[in-house]
């Protein structure tokens, strides 16, 4: 059991990285990887929100939706939970940690529409994870996403100094090339851990 949780964690970061193998969260991945600082900010926010909403949605799904047989509306419920927790988080930050609010504030609204957040809840249902597995999976996926965007942001910062990217490829295009090569290299971990 413990080993399985560890392997879920490692898998979500390396072998089954949510950005590099499931290709999720690409829009912010492209637009926020311009500087390391924003990448970090977004990454940390994603880690926080994904873990929180993953856990909440598990509870709601298994304790409310399943008993009442209303899985049909799970999408609506999930997205509302996500939107509400982001709102709540924003308010809490504003009230108690205004400093953090300034640095995270701009990222929070973006997160609502980040597919990583919803994807984690959907995968959790499809893969039939229990609560602890869900939390680990959510946390790991977000860490994996953050890792990927951080690497790419650092590379893009270096490119802004030393690169000479053809015009049509600047911005989104070169981000894809970088992400593609990084995804190639991440394939090297294949077989190291099994995801359930």
């Amino acid at each position: 059991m413990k080993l399985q949780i560890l392997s879920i964690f490692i898998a979500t970061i390396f072998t089954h990285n949510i950005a590099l193998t499931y290709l999720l969260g690409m829009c912010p991945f492209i637009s926020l990887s311009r500087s390391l600082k924003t990448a970090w900010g977004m990454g940390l926010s994603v880690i926080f929100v994904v873990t929180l909403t993953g856990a909440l949605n598990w509870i709601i799904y298994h304790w409310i939706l399943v008993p009442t047989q209303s899985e049909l509306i799970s999408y609506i419920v999930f997205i509302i939970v996500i939107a509400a927790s982001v709102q709540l988080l924003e308010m809490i930050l504003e009230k108690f940690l205004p400093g953090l609010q300034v640095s995270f504030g701009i990222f929070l609204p973006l997160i609502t529409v980040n597919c990583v957040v919803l994807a984690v809840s959907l995968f959790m249902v499809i893969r039939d994870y229990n609560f602890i597995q869900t939390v680990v999976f959510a946390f790991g996926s977000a860490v994996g996403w953050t890792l990927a965007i951080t690497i790419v942001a650092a590379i893009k910062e270096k490119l802004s100094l030393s690169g000479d990217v053809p015009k049509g490829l600047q911005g989104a295009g070169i981000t894809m090339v970088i992400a593609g090569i990084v995804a190639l290299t991440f394939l090297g971990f294949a077989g190291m851990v099994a995801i359930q």
Partner: protein
Amino acid sequence: MKKLHLIIGKLYKIKYLTKFKPIFNVVDSIFVGVKDTTDSAPHVVDNLDTKRYMTAVIVALMPATLASIYFFGWKALAIIFVSYAAGGLAEVTFAIIRKKEIHEGFLVTGLIFALVLPPTTPLWVVAVGVIFGTVFGKEMFGGTGRNIFNPALVGRLFITLAFPSIMTTSWLKPFTDAVTSATPLTTFKSMQVVTPFSNLLLGDCTGSMGEIFRLGIIVGGLFLILTKVSNWRIPVSYLGSVFILSWLGNTFLGVKVAPPLFQLFAGGLLFGAMYMATDPVSSPFTKSGKWIFGIGCGIFTFLIRNFSGYVEGVMFSILLMNAFSPLIDHLVIELKYKPVKK
């Protein structure tokens, strides 16, 4: 040579040929050389140029190259030729389209790429790989000196993953045409059999063309270090960390983990550590960054070789650490230079 220069100059004037200026420039600079003088201080500059810098790498690669030709004959020659031709074509095309010079870096890329291929690689796969490596690994970032990943490895990795059944199933023993499916590392992985060291050192074993004559690689690698073309920190930390990790693994995790010396001499580790991890463009430029890079390569090589489905740990780990290099440099610099307040 003067005549040549004049002829080139005339060709260059022909209207339809102006587009091909990069090609003329290359020929001119190789055969004729540079006439320019410094325009202000420093009035004298070092005699080293990038051409010689890259040539030094070619020289260092000679033992491995010659050995591969000796072992595999025309197959090796054909692969090297196709690698240079196809990659060169990609390079020249980009130079013409983007109106830039053709740079020397490709001399190394073209050769290294050929040397890390299995001798049985079909020539069209060689072409696909080298073109992919040159275009996606280098030109898209702006060409020589601007790439993030090692272009030769990007090409190698791409074809490994695109054509796994071609790239991982057929190996040749030197001097024979007998195809086998096992390299020393796969043999170890499936049967825990250690190939004798003399075979590994002298090249009497299966593997990529350039990686099996390990004695020559060591000599060439030392040559690079002693000429200051490559930095000693990376090979030392890379090989050192693989050695230590596999010693620890072999002692504590059991015989599934290859013993340290075998680990060092098997597969492409020596070749990678001496010629590919040291690529200055795609590795960190800070000193501590180089140590971290080497150790990171070591850790990933160890993990991938022993615990993942692949045995090409060297290829993966160098590229992985290439991806981490800018981040490493960024963090090292952030720690080293305290910000100045305005």
